């Protein structure tokens, strides 16, 4: 039972990490290696607004979402757009930006254990004899809501449809009059907002530390690869796969194998079925 509860929580957390990354990759084929940095950055922005500026929690959250979204869009508009399509340059450039953000934060004094965000609702409850705090339950609920909203957004709004069109066939989308660069900027903005959302939901569980940026990035990549790069729903399903696999390893093997499991999942997936469990590419295409 505890496996079920905490497995679900862990999986939702992984899904939240990964959604933003998956969205950006899906739309513009950009592996955004600054994703982890944006995650951490938004945590610190919220903290600053809450503690240094004294804004109410909800206002800080909304502002953080907006600011992170704008930062993400600006990173794309001013930097990444110039190396678009050059895969290695994209990775190096976005990784370098992420590095600059993270290390800049560290230099700016954001280090140690002093930075925490308050939980939305404090306290805990018992589910079938297992104590779970409200914040974790909230994470699951909001995580589910995010997935639902995202689905509605991409199926029923103009921007969402345009994004989905880009994801499926960029050239065709361009012929239909969709501005591919603009859409990529929008996607990057939304992806960053998703990273911020994940941060705001998950960081109250612990504290805001720079190191988390690197871990979030690796986990996001792991989830996206297992789920099939660029497939959002695949990422959600893969999050559950890896999430439960991790919890099961902790219970039956030992926590030190947690990361090994994530990495092994990636290697295994890539060797056996490179397009991921839910990827849409054809077998022939990726191997030849």
């Amino acid at each position, binding site marked *: 039972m505890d496996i079920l509860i905490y497995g679900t929580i862990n999986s939702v957390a992984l899904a939240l990490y990964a959604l933003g990354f998956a969205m950006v990759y899906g739309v513009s084929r950009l592996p955004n290696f600054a994703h982890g940095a944006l995650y951490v950055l938004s945590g610190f922005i919220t903290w600053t607004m809450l503690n240094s500026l004294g804004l109410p929690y909800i206002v800080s959250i909304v502002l953080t979402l907006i600011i992170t979204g704008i930062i993400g869009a600006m990173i794309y508009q001013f930097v990444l757009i110039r190396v678009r399509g050059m895969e290695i340059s994209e990775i190096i450039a976005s990784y370098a*930006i992420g590095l*600059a953000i993270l290390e800049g934060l560290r*230099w700016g004094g954001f280090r140690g254990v002093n930075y925490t965000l308050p939980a939305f609702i404090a306290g805990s409850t018992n589910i079938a004899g297992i104590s779970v705090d409200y914040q974790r339950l909230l994470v699951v609920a909001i995580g589910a809501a995010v997935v639902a909203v995202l689905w509605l957004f991409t199926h029923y709004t103009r921007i969402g449809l345009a994004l989905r069109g880009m994801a499926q066939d960029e050239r065709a989308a361009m012929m239909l009059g969709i501005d591919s660069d603009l859409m990529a900027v929008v996607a990057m903005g939304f992806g960053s907002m998703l990273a911020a959302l994940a941060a705001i939901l998950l960081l109250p569980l612990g504290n805001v530390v720079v190191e988390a940026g690197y871990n979030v990035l690796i986990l996001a990549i792991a989830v996206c690869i297992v789920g099939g790069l660029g497939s959002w729903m695949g990422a959600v399903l893969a999050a559950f796969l890896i999430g439960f696999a991790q919890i099961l390893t902790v219970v039956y093997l030992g926590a030190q*194998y947690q990361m090994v499991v994530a990495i092994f999942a990636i290697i295994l997936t890539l060797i056996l079925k490179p397009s991921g469990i839910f990827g849409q590419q054809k077998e022939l295409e990726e*191997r*030849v």
Partner: protein
Amino acid sequence: MAITTQRRKERIDRGINVRTEGIYALMSIKELSYLAAPRLVLIVGLLILPLLLPDMYWKRVITITCIYAFLALSFDFLAHFVGLVSLGGAFFVGIGGYLAAIANTYWGFPPWLTIPFAALVGGAVCTLLLFPCLPLRGVYFAIVSLMYPLFSARVIEALDIFGGTDGIMGIDGFSNHFVEEYAPLGLLLIALFAIRRLVTTDFGLVLRGVKDNDQAIRASGMNVTFYKSVAVYIASTMGCLSGAILVHIYMWSGISLFALDFSILPIAATVIGGSGTLIGPVLGCFILVPISELLRDFGTLRIVFYALILVGFIIFRSEGLMVWGQRKYHQFERWTQI
């Protein structure tokens, strides 16, 4: 009304025979030096670099640069002449380093034996382990190869073999300063020109064929995986060589040999130096590593500057310094009116 003249830049090849491909004769000393000058500058420059730097510390920085340069060279070779984007530089370093450490401390080989041993056997080990992934291509191979070093480190850690997280201590160092400075430099130059020669041979052509159109290679009765594994062997031998040298310089080996930096930095150097030029990545290392050392004085801020410089290079010289330099050398530009 003001008359606006429109101008554009014209690029013209320098009119020297040696620029044309195929058969040619060198007509004069001028043309000979045109060809030889860049190569000479590189070789002589690298060789006298340790002499110019009086400081022991900067000599060491150069040696470390050489280590990264090996990795950058192997990355560029695999990525642009075979089509395998390998992020597994750290994997090569780790395997090479551990093999040298084991050969030295467990079996008592001296350094001049462990380094070739680690390079040759390490190359074979890496090739063998990467073999199942060779049919993959593009970003898929990249990510798998990125996972290998992470995985290896975890395995050594979890199984607690080869000294576990403490690493292996008490490895022999180089006996001679001169050897320590020049062995990596010399080997790097040899590797650089050997690879340059290799990619223009018929075998090199086949490797490029593997990159451009592996279907046609198959249809010509050649085993693509075989050629890929030969190429991986060549590249990983260089990587393992650098790992072995590193281990002997610091007389220590540990799981941090699988650290991500060994995968990332050479690629950054390749992007800066100009991919596909082979010399570019090496030069990129000779720019990036010293910059990183210069920035040490900034403490934690160092990485921020470093990252920003990297981004700057990528944005403003996205083709790479070497490509840009070659163009400037072989062509001249002038403004023309239209």
